[in-house]
């Protein structure tokens, strides 16, 4: 049973990791919690759903993921253009980013509700069988796909940030945007690139969440809570911290739910987040980030 709980916990954690990284990457540069990420996830879930329904037969799943990733990118650029870039130009206080992100999150969800109501929609079945067994352990195929895609995307991101000139520019802007400009880095392009990456992650997350949990306007905002907790525990702005914390969160959640119950688990999860904020606000990876600075 413990092995099965570990398998399930890691699967859940992979979903949280995808969301947490999208959150963390924006925080790493912009230093604000981009709650509009939840709205983007919901919008992409709907886009992917209707993309699949637009064709008969439905296109291959990976095509849907690619399409929604591109759409997520477009939505992110639109939000940045309409909202965040104006705050940047005016050099307004950081709180405005937070307010803007919350407003966009609510706006997107309400637009989806106006057009689609609160009805739920189900993606067509992707796999013939949902699960398979290895020994006594049961694996859910979609969970493994999510885990695989999450790991691949995260490795690609880490390689981008640590092994490329663009990644060097991102890290420089994350440390000090003004100094980066003085060094000849186009900070504006870097910020746009960050939102592009977040948008791609939202697109991929939206499709996976839509497949796992049905498509409805609030699907993104509900999952955002877990992604946010993972980001905080992992260290806001730290990609590796967010990934580690998300996986740990998935494991903790499933073990607590199994042994204590759902209600107690919710309380404990938020208590853990609060404990980190009190005792180690920089999160698990915060110290590493401080050392680098």
């Amino acid at each position: 049973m413990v092995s099965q709980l570990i398998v399930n916990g890691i699967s859940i954690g992979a979903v949280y990791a995808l969301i947490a990284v999208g959150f963390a990457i924006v925080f790493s540069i912009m230093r604000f919690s981009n709650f509009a990420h939840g709205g983007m996830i919901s919008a992409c879930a709907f886009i992917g759903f209707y993309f699949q329904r637009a064709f008969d037969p439905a296109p291959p799943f990976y095509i849907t993921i690619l399409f929604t990733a591109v759409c997520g990118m477009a939505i992110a650029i639109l939000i940045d253009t309409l909202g965040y870039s104006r705050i940047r130009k005016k050099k307004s206080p950081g709180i405005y980013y937070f307010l803007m992100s919350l407003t966009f999150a609510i706006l997107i969800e309400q637009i989806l509700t106006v057009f689609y109501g609160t009805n739920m929609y189900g993606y067509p079945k992707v796999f013939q069988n949902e699960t398979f067994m290895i020994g006594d352990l049961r694996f859910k195929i979609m969970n493994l796909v999510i885990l695989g895609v999450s790991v691949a995307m995260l490795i690609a991101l880490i390689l981008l940030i640590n092994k490329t000139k663009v990644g060097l520019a991102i890290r420089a802007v994350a440390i000090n945007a003004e100094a980066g400009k003085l060094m000849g880095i186009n900070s504006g392009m870097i910020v746009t690139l960050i939102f592009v990456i977040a948008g791609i992650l939202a697109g991929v997350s939206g499709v996976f969440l839509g497949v796992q949990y049905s498509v409805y306007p609030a699907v993104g905002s509900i999952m955002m809570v877990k992604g946010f907790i993972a980001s905080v525990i992992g260290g806001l702005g730290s990609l590796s911290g967010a990934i580690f914390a998300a996986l740990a969160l998935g494991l903790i959640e499933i073990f607590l739910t199994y042994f204590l119950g759902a209600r107690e688990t919710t309380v404990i999860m938020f208590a853990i987040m609060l404990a980190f904020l009190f005792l180690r606000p920089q999160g698990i990876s915060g110290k590493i980030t401080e050392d680098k600075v």
Partner: protein
Amino acid sequence: MKKIVLVVAILVMALSLAGCKPKAAEPQEKIIIGSIQDLSGGASEAGKANAWGAEYAVKVINENGGIDGRQIEIITLDCKNDLNEGINVYRKLVDEYKVDAIIGPPLSNPASGWVELSEEDQVPIVGHFADEITTTNPDTGAVYPFMYLVQPSCGQQSDAIAKFAIETLGLKTYATLYNTGNAFAKAHAIPFMKYVRDHGGSVVAEETFTWTDTDYSAQALKIVAANPEAVFLSDYANQAATAYDALRDAGFTGVILGANTLALPFPTLVKNEIHDLYFLQNYDMLNPETRCYDLHQTYMKEVGSEYPKANVGFGWDAVQVLAAALEKAKDPKDGVEVREILESTKGVEICMGDITINPATHRPTTLGMHIAVYDENNTMQILTYVEP
């Protein structure tokens, strides 16, 4: 001369009388009904269907002459499935629009805010708010005099499916998986477990989740470990679909029982094949021989819906029960009189059956529930009817 004057006078009088038209009958005052539904909140899909059913019923009644020649005006307002908003729109209907009665939503949360207000204002409210707390005081058992439920209550519905599982399927061991944050879910799960225990069965696992949970695999694993013959899911469609998949993914191959929220489009929401699933339904909506068939077909055509919705029948039925009482009343605008007549509702024909209301509880005594399944094409089929 005098004769001429007299003749002229008579002629003038005669002409005056001939010119008099009979006084036109004054049009009778309209009966004003309020309809409070969730049109934009979390249950708006059901709420809009409910509103449509109620408005359509009023339209048909008016086309057939109204109630004793009086036309009905229905005013629909949105409670957003929120207690406070429900009170706001209630107050608007009563104070501004001066409604004579209200058709309530199939939601107990907003309805629970009107239980005392309706008595203060003497406005009868008829609806499908199935939680017993909306018609009787949970502490004293006293009935709320102006609140009327016109479908089987949550407890009655749970008893129906438990009875079916025990007597027809012959199952003895059960588990439940439900949302502790959802009053609808709790109001079904708790009576279900009680019925099972009272009738020789056992509940081997009681697992719960909350609104913020998105994964129920831990709960499903515990249920599988307890090895029940059946699991009862009592939640809204989305949560029920996630729970169904979690159970099947965890390897549960037994019977799954569900509330009346598992109607279409439930099969489109689950990832696993649907098998051994039995769930409650208020109507046999796809059977052309039933009373409500034409109503549902009209709704589907007018709204462009791919499938029928039970809530259309809810709206229609609530108006029919209220209209029957309004017709019997000497003064349909007298809330007290209408309330008393509603209390003695007996054998009124509605889509769900012939309804008789228990004066002690203001809930029906004569309405049972259908048990439905999905066939291999995921088409809903009614299996049987469980008498009350």
